[in-house]
């Protein structure tokens, strides 16, 4: 068999391994939890519903329409679509990164010589991707059904932004999995700082154009904000996105992924060692 044939076979086998680990994780949850495989959807869904409830509550307190996003974002989005679009991007990044920071929780498959730590990280990211994509599509579908106002202006951009976020989350996650091997306290502090940064600077609750120009640099360094805003823009091309750039998101994703793969290649054996916990 020539090189191309072997390469193709190798890639096909690796993809099969990642999907197998993904099913392994779902199957073990299936028997280990009262809600089974739905657990991976229910947990993020309840946080999202809490966020939506919070935002609707503020809108009601301000006396604006209960279906509007509140503030000037009313002109472009329904509140549920606004929060869901921010949540599905920012929380995809957060779930992959925070899980990686806790180290490899799924370690048993490493017993099989063909399975490498990277396969497990990819499989876990795949499961998060599936869960959040299911929630997003479900919620957007429900909103479109009830308001009868389907809008997806740039589906290509939406898919690209989603995939770039997955790549960036994966790259960031691989870097963090090595950080997770440090002291438990450092890990805990990093986890809390990351959580707050992601929740408050990723634009889940706000739109960049609503911020005064001098405040924007405080949040536009965050590539997740670019992903969130570009995703909203892909739903509605009228949505203004000042200081937001697809090029910045692409660069951040590729640089993070490239750096993480080099880090992984040179330190893979560290991930096989005993859990620090």
């Amino acid at each position: 068999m020539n090189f191309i044939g072997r390469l193709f076979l190798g890639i096909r086998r690796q993809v099969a391994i990642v999907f197998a680990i993904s099913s392994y994780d779902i199957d073990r949850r299936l028997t280990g939890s009262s809600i089974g495989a739905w657990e991976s959807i229910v947990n993020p869904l309840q946080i999202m519903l809490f966020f939506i409830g919070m935002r609707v509550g503020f809108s009601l307190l301000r006396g604006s329409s209960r279906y509007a996003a509140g503030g000037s974002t009313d002109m472009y989005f329904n509140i549920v679509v606004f929060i869901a679009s921010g949540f599905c991007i920012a929380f995809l990044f957060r779930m992959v990164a925070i899980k990686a920071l806790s180290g490899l929780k799924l370690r048993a498959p490493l017993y099989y010589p063909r399975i490498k730590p990277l396969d497990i990280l990819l499989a876990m990211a795949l499961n998060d991707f599936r869960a959040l994509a299911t929630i997003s599509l479900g919620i957007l579908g429900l909103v479109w059904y009830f308001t009868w106002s389907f809008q997806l202006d740039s589906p290509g951009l939406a898919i690209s932004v989603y995939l770039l976020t997955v790549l960036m989350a994966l790259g960031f996650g691989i870097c963090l999995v090595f950080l997770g091997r440090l002291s438990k306290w450092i890990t805990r502090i990093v986890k809390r700082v990351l959580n707050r940064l992601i929740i408050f600077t990723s634009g889940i609750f706000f739109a960049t154009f609503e911020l005064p120009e001098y405040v924007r640099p405080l949040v536009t360094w965050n590539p997740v904000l670019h992903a969130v805003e570009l995703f909203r823009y892909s739903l509605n091309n009228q949505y203004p996105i000042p200081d937001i750039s697809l090029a910045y998101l692409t660069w951040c994703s590729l640089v993070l992924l490239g750096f993480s793969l080099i880090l992984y290649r040179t330190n893979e054996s560290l991930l096989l060692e005993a859990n620090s916990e």
Partner: protein
Amino acid sequence: MVSELGPSTSGVVVSATASARPVLTFRNFSLRCDPSDSSIGFKNVWNWSFLEGKKTAVISNNLFLKYQLVGALAGHVAPISGQILFDGVIGWPVGGEGGLDSKLRISHALDFLIAVYGDCLEKSFVSMDLFWDLLSRMEIHSGLIIRDLSLLQKDYFFLALSVLFSFDFYLIPRTKFLMSKSAKPLRPFLLNQLEAKTLVSTSVNKSFQREFCTDGLVLGAFGEILFSGGLDEAIRWADQNLEASNSADSDDERFGTGLNLLNSDSSDDGTDDFI
């Protein structure tokens, strides 16, 4: 059994003394020899190969070294230096219970392994029908959850899984269950699968060695190759020259391979402290 190679000069593996294909080659390879000191490795690094079709019993008084060797071959332990080059598919330790979460059903576990090692089923002597038939003799069926199996059923199931697939290189660190009466139905199938395949075992069980191995490799406490040859000569050589050791198969359990590879069920999505 082993073909000595010169110090590493290139990635090409050359069998110096035999026509058989090297299945596994050590290159400037060294392992930890002392559990209490991670800096103590081999006196001389290894540069040699295991050849295809050879079934080798590794004999050594250093239990930790045997554990490290199996761990390194299975990919669970990183060597101090060097690398191992494989030409073929290496199996997980035969009968090993790591890898599968106890919450998985039998069918889930099998689906998972078929997805990962599906290509090793094509040349297997054991068909799926035969596999299920073998399991049914111990009243194991697809819907059962692994944690609900009895100890005997578990041992049998994990050994049956190892027998199902056909690998190029087999590792057998422990043989307590394999040589027991309960595993008798599986032994002929394992012997069949091993035909023309390479085997490395660190078990000290003499009846296993006589039934499954053809060659012996005697290692010193620091990885020195003291003797390499036929099994009977190797056992004789070890009996005469190695310090008397009372090690039994159960002693090896102190250093089980892959014991640190456990799944964790603690909260992992950070919902506990997201604010």
